[in-house]
């Protein structure tokens, strides 16, 4: 881990096992499959559901600041708590939570490298009882949202037109080309298939090893460098609804140390449903199959 630009944002499973019950540490499981936590989880961990607790359930948006503060307080998280996030599918939604915590300025948030998969495969202790989150003694105070971490539609439209930003589409190659309109087996959620003109395709999962841990710095440099990510130009990552791309955002910003990288969480469910939006189909230059 020490080769990464910000190795302090990763902990391994051994560290988590040792520190999960420390007073200043709160371990949180965030899964794609929100039922996974109930079958067994890291002892002492609490769970957040991405589809009800990590988004605004009325307006399509991330958590509003006040709701974020309430979630933190209710979860027993103070401003100086070390938060360790982990989850299934190589920490996909753990990264989504990490991104929001950074938007609201939480200083010490980390990801357990390898996530739930590695914990299970190492046959580590699990428990089924839900850990009790004692609300923090003082209400959590979030910073104003750091929008330098987030891209909105007008910025993406301008970037696509100007070609001065590296656009990374992290969906599967079949979604990128327009062959399918959603991940296999899931409902179609857009009117048109394809990708934003000029985007490169680097599927998010390529950043991980078979055991769920992140690839080495050299491997990541090679993976993203092949699509023009060098740090010289800003990067926008997107997917279908913004979660897979939060994983790539994490890799680019914290492991590779790319300063100007944003997550376009409107992603293809916004662009692919937009009247008049230009769409490119098929493989693009630099696409990674």
């Amino acid at each position, binding site marked *: 881990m020490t080769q990464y630009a910000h190795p302090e944002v990763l902990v391994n499973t051994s560290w988590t096992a040792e520190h999960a019950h420390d007073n200043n540490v709160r371990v949180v499981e965030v899964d794609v499959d929100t039922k*996974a936590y109930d079958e067994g989880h890291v002892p002492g961990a609490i769970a957040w559901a991405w589809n009800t607790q990590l988004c605004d359930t009325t307006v399509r948006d991330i958590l509003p600041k006040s709701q974020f503060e309430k979630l933190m307080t209710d979860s027993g998280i103070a401003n100086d708590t070390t938060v360790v996030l982990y989850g299934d599918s190589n920490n996909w939604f753990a990264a989504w939570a990490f991104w929001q915590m950074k938007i609201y300025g939480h200083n010490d948030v980390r990801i357990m490298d390898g996530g739930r998969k590695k914990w299970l*495969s190492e*046959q580590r202790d699990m428990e089924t009882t839900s850990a009790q989150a004692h609300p923090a003694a003082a209400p959590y105070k979030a910073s104003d949202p750091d929008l330098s971490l987030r891209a909105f539609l007008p910025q993406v439209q301008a970037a696509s037109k100007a070609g001065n930003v590296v656009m990374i589409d992290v969906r599967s190659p079949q979604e990128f080309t*327009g062959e399918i309109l959603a991940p296999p*087996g899931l409902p179609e959620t857009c009117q048109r298939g394809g990708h934003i003109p000029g985007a490169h395709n680097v599927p998010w999962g390529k950043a991980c090893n078979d055991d769920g841990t992140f690839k080495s710095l050299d491997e990541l440099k090679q993976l993203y460098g092949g699509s023009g990510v060098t740090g010289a130009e800003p990067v926008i990552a997107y997917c279908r609804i913004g979660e897979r791309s939060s994983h790539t955002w994490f890799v680019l910003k914290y492991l590779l140390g790319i300063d100007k990288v944003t997550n376009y969480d409107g992603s293809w469910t916004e662009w692919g449903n937009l009247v008049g939006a230009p769409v490119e189909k098929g493989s693009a230059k630099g696409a990674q199959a």
Partner: protein
Amino acid sequence: MKPEDYSERTVEVDGWPVHLVTYRLEGKYHCKADNVSPGANLARIVADTREEAEDKALARAKELLGRTRRHPVQ
């Protein structure tokens, strides 16, 4: 408790790769099927035996993947 008898493998269902993870927790077998590249969950089954859990997970995955439409790209 500890997960035991952990295994994972990738199989093809209707032309799509499906990743199966199976393990035993407190006497029951848990099997999760997901679509490989995006990693989205297709099925989670709990059963008495590994075979039963995996068969049911694959059946559910097959049902969902059968609804996926392929579109022309040119």
